[in-house]
């Protein structure tokens, strides 16, 4: 009998062999990968764990909903769990890897049809494997004046994946789930569900009206393992007549609270059109320098060392990049409004900055952050704060002190809404050094514990931390999620462990 390097949990080799035969019959031999050599492209956890802790047992790549349905039947018959990925570019959250070892990666990259773009209503309907690059090129080729809103891994990532993870971007359509409308979802039991108005034969408004009739379900399929989303409706932004990007910089480290309290009303009433990003000088500095060039001492890079190098680029301790969008007269008026408010808070303001993500230009520049150390170690610690200066400042102080204790450099890149701040803090560490991996993991866990104690939630998290984060959000919520899971996926074959939702209660 064939030997396998990794098996799905509780599945003997003989049963796995029958499942693989079923997958091959469903999608064709060349679209089922099994050996560690073949699976290597998927195995880059980036998070502070061994890659092997999340090693997949196989990957299978269907090209259509019909092939996917056939795959799912095989999974149910043989109780083989699958971990769906659209393009698998969830960098710093686990990339393509499953939450538990031995799951089969369900790689949906080959399902990449752009099914519909409506230039009048500004909507699209796409399959999982469509990338932002593909959709961007499509709009250009067809001369359609709609913008996309990209997450940091823009060209490589998919609107489907990022929307389902509730990711964000840097235009007025930055809330990706907030701008999705209608889904087709294959449930674990084989049901093919269309949400919203998608269930009506000959539906006229599936991508125009989100809520449909009765309970609004789309949210339960985000950060979720209740089904496999096979089509997603998107709202796209009409290209604005004009836009202007600004950089506001505050000269003192205590400026964060003042900055947030100043920005809040401008976001809240829509004057500032996008989340923008409030970054510390250290994060901006990574565009220009590698760590080894600016600091060789022990522990986290000291603030004084950051300040000295940042100053040579004219970067002040806290910087906010944001844009105004709309008609030129409106931008002119709002420029006066934001200038007055931000300068009164002590900021220096520069207009006419170029930040590609804020203006519909694809880029991977954000990942120059990975060159800071250079071995591919990245974990996003992403707590949520209310959009209140004192709260954000408190989170930053807490995080910085815990990271200092663990010798982790403190980077901050918060996105601001009128009411909430996603206080994103990328932790870049040396993945080639075992001690550094373990230290980063301990640091992440310490952050989770402390932030939980302080009453803060987490916007999104990666594999390896999902159980902890789910616990932090309350046993009742997790219990209800597990009951929904049992109802929709009775054999528990879709992405066990996603967001801490395991199919069987009392997981060991």
């Amino acid at each position: 009998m064939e030997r396998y390097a990794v098996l799905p949990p509780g599945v003997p080799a003989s049963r796995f062999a029958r499942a693989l035969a079923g997958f091959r019959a469903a999608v064709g031999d060349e679209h089922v990968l099994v050996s560690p050599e073949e699976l290597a492209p998927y195995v880059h956890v980036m998070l502070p764990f061994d890659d092997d802790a999340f090693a997949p047992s196989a990957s299978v790549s269907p090209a259509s909903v019909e092939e996917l349905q056939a795959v799912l039947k095989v999974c149910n018959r043989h109780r083989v769990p699958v971990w769906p990925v659209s393009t698998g570019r969830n960098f710093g959250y686990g990339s393509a890897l499953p939450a538990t070892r031995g799951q089969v990666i369900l790689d949906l990259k080959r399902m990449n049809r752009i099914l519909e773009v409506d230039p009048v209503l500004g909507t699209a309907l796409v399959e999982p494997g469509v990338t932002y690059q593909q959709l961007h090129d499509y709009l250009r080729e067809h001369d359609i004046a709609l913008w996309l809103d990209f997450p940091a891994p823009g060209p490589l990532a998919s609107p489907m994946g990022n929307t389902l993870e509730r990711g964000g971007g840097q235009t007025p359509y930055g809330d990706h789930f907030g701008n999705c409308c209608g889904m087709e979802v294959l449930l674990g039991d084989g049901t093919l569900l269309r949400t919203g108005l998608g269930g009506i034969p000959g539906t006229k408004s599936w991508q125009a009206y989100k809520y449909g009739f009765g309970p609004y379900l789309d949210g339960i399929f985000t950060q979720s393992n209740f089904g496999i989303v096979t089509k997603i409706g998107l709202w796209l932004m009409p290209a604005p007549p004009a836009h202007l990007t600004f950089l506001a910089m505050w000269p003192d480290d205590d400026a964060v609270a003042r900055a947030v309290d100043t920005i809040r009303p401008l976001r809240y009433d829509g004057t500032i059109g996008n989340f923008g990003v409030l970054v510390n000088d250290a994060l901006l500095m990574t565009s220009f320098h590698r760590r080894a060039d600016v600091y060789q001492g022990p522990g986290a890079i000291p603030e004084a060392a950051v300040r000295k190098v940042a100053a040579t680029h004219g970067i002040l301790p806290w910087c906010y990049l944001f844009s105004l969008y709309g008609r030129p007269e409106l931008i002119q008026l709002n420029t006066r409004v934001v200038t007055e408010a931000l300068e009164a808070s002590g900021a220096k303001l520069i207009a006419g900055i170029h930040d590609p993500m804020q203006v519909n230009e694809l880029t991977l520049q954000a990942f120059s952050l990975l060159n800071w150390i250079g071995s591919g170690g990245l974990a996003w610690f992403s707590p949520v704060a209310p959009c209140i200066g004192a709260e954000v400042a408190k989170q930053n102080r807490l995080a910085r002190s815990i990271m200092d204790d663990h010798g982790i450099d403190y980077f901050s890149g918060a996105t601001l809404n009128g009411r909430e701040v996603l206080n994103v803090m990328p932790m870049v560490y040396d993945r080639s050094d075992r001690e550094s991996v373990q230290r980063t993991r301990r640091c992440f866990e310490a952050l989770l514990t402390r932030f939980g104690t302080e009453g803060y939630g987490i916007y999104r998290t990666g594999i390896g931390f999902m159980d902890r984060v789910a616990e932090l959000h309350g046993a009742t919520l997790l219990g209800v999620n597990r009951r929904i899971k049992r109802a929709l996926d009775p054999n528990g074959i879709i992405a066990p462990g996603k967001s801490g939702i395991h199919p069987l209660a009392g997981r060991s």
Partner: protein
Amino acid sequence: MSRRNLACGALLLLASPLAAAQSAGQWQGPEHIWRAICSYCHATGVGVQLLGTRVPAAIIAEITRKGVNQMPGFAPSQISDAELAALAEWITRASPPEPAKPPAQESKP
């Protein structure tokens, strides 16, 4: 081009929703892959400069498939074996990039 040919061309564009498709077996050649994927890092300074360096094709193909350090791997669902071989060969043979033109827009400080 005659008026009739023009009309046919326009129809073709509308009737080919996969014109921009970018998974395995759909690429329009190595330069298409370079532009849509590789260039974002390897022509911007985020990753190492590759064009004109004559790195052997076998090494490019191996690293592209499996990834290394901060570079992710690219699975056969995205770039087929044949497409990867052609891409690696194209990169190996490519001339060094033109010297950078002055930026059209103001850049970050």
